């Protein structure tokens, strides 16, 4: 918000930045460990964590108005419907994947 509201000191953001770089390193590292199916879960989990740092800290999601949470969350929440409900089809469809 504009006006007199105080903002976080630069140090907080620098710590956040370092954390994100560190997480990136972890993510790349995990790709070479031969973790199989766990690897994408870890990598996308890390991406989600980094995104959370960006949203909450860098994009100032914390603080008023709390409506921001609703708006920011709705996009991700609705994606769950897209992914989840399509799985009722893709996870159980006979003859999928199909050959070209």
């Amino acid at each position, binding site marked *: 918000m504009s006006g007199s509201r105080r903002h976080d000191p630069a140090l907080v953001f620098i710590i956040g930045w370092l954390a994100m770089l560190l997480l990136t390193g972890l993510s790349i590292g995990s790709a070479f460990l031969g973790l199989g199916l766990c690897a994408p879960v870890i990598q996308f989990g890390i991406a989600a964590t980094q995104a959370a740092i960006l949203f909450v800290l860098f994009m100032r999601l914390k603080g008023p108005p709390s*409506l921001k949470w609703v708006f920011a969350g*709705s*996009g991700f929440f*609705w994606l769950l*419907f*897209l992914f989840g*409900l*399509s799985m*009722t*089809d893709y*996870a*159980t*469809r*006979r003859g*999928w*994947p*199909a*050959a*070209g």
Partner: protein
Amino acid sequence: MSSIAVDPPRNYASEENTIASWLLTRDHKRIALMFFASITAFFFIGGAAATLIRLHLATPAGLLQPSVYNRVFTMHGVVMVWFFLIPSIPATLGNFFVPMMIGAHDLAFPRINLASWYVFNLSGLVLLYALVMGGVDTGWTFYTPLSTIYANGYVFAAAMAVFINGFSTIMTALNFVVTIHRLRAPGMLWTRLPLFVWGIYSVSVVMLLATPVLAMDTLLLAVEQFLQVGLFDPSHGGDPLLWQHMFWFYSHPAVYIMILPAMGVVSELIACYARRPIFGYSGMTIAMMAIAVISFFVWAHHMFVAGISIYAAVVFSLMTFFVAVPSAIKVFNWTASLHKGSISFDAPMIYALGFVLLFTIGGLTGLMLATLAVDVDVHDTYFVIAHFHYIMVGGTVSAFFGGLHYWWPKMTGRLYPEMLARFAAFLTFVGFNLTFFPQFILGYLGMPRRYYTYPPEWQVWNVLSSAGASILAVGYLLPLFYLGWSLIWGRHASPNPWRATGLEWLTSSPPPTHNFERTPVVAIGPYSYDPEDGSYTTQDGVRHV
């Protein structure tokens, strides 16, 4: 407030009336009128296509070449869905009246509102380019691989038109959501919002959350059409059903994008002309939001025979029955709102009551389509055509015309000729049923949609349908003439000719540029009508006898 002097008549339209002042305006009321001009043009393009379709189908031999017929029904679908029905009520009536009804001086982002109109027209031009240059013959659903590997290049243009159109939808919806959240007048609590505003709010939420998926889908379609290889290409292991999943993830909620604002309009009309509070206000708002959310859980009911898993079909069928429940609540509440009212059958009320009946028929046949085994039989037949026209034409277009008549005095400062309007409303109702009811029978007989010819024994029903369409066309053309006539020769309207309760009626007719001299303070909820003594209380708390 009702004693505002209307002399001299300075209003939003007459103040600085130059072409540049319109094209660069930031006034939501002017933008609404500009949207109105654009969608009327598209309504007549789509209507002309519809007329051609019905003329063609009057005989089994037909009138047009198959290739032309296929292009005509595709254009009818694309134009009517994206260029008329979806923007119809939100971008015109919503744009004009949402700020006024919540007591705001304008929308939150006037420039974005204006940009939305320009983007809309740009997308319209791209579509007209596709239409004039060669047309598209894939149906408005653009099913792959027919629309990509097996189609001509104008599919690319049409897909881009739909893509660009999405920006316009999103900009308008974003404006409404933020405006309704942030710019309500003091005292305008959520529980005091008129149901029309609730309708626009819920529809904006649906638009915002559904349109981006369609945008991505059409973009991928355009890529596949352009490169002849893409994500839906079965020859590379791609899944044509993925297109359908993403398409219907948007296009099923889009049906509710069309109907939710119509529900809002009809609620206003019924309360005003029955002179009593709407029955179950909170139930109505909950039902609208429930429809908005559940509408996202039902998309695959368009795909019951498309080859999705049986398990998924059962889940989506169940969800579809759930979405019918709030719709049923609304129908019952509208009907109950007539109980012990003081009902006058003015033209807007005829449209509104017609809406309730036609929507009920459309909704009930929707239930039949949601029933899996029946859908297997009637899917992609004229039964489906009849069903969704009952919802979209019988529902949305009726409500649009009803709302247009209701608010016409406020928008233009003129009264329309009442008897002629009643006649047109009645004609539309009759013509509509004659056009589309026979199609239910044709559908169960097994006439598939998008056929340019059919066996001769089905001609009776097709002739009836075509005859009804000509009556319907007259019903739609009449308002164009008498509303145009009323602009010049109509009687001047008082600020509140219908003795309605909303904030929009507190201003002069037509309203001044920034709506209100002073921001109104809201004291009570909407629809304080009293059928016993005919009095009503406007939302600023002033009782009028």
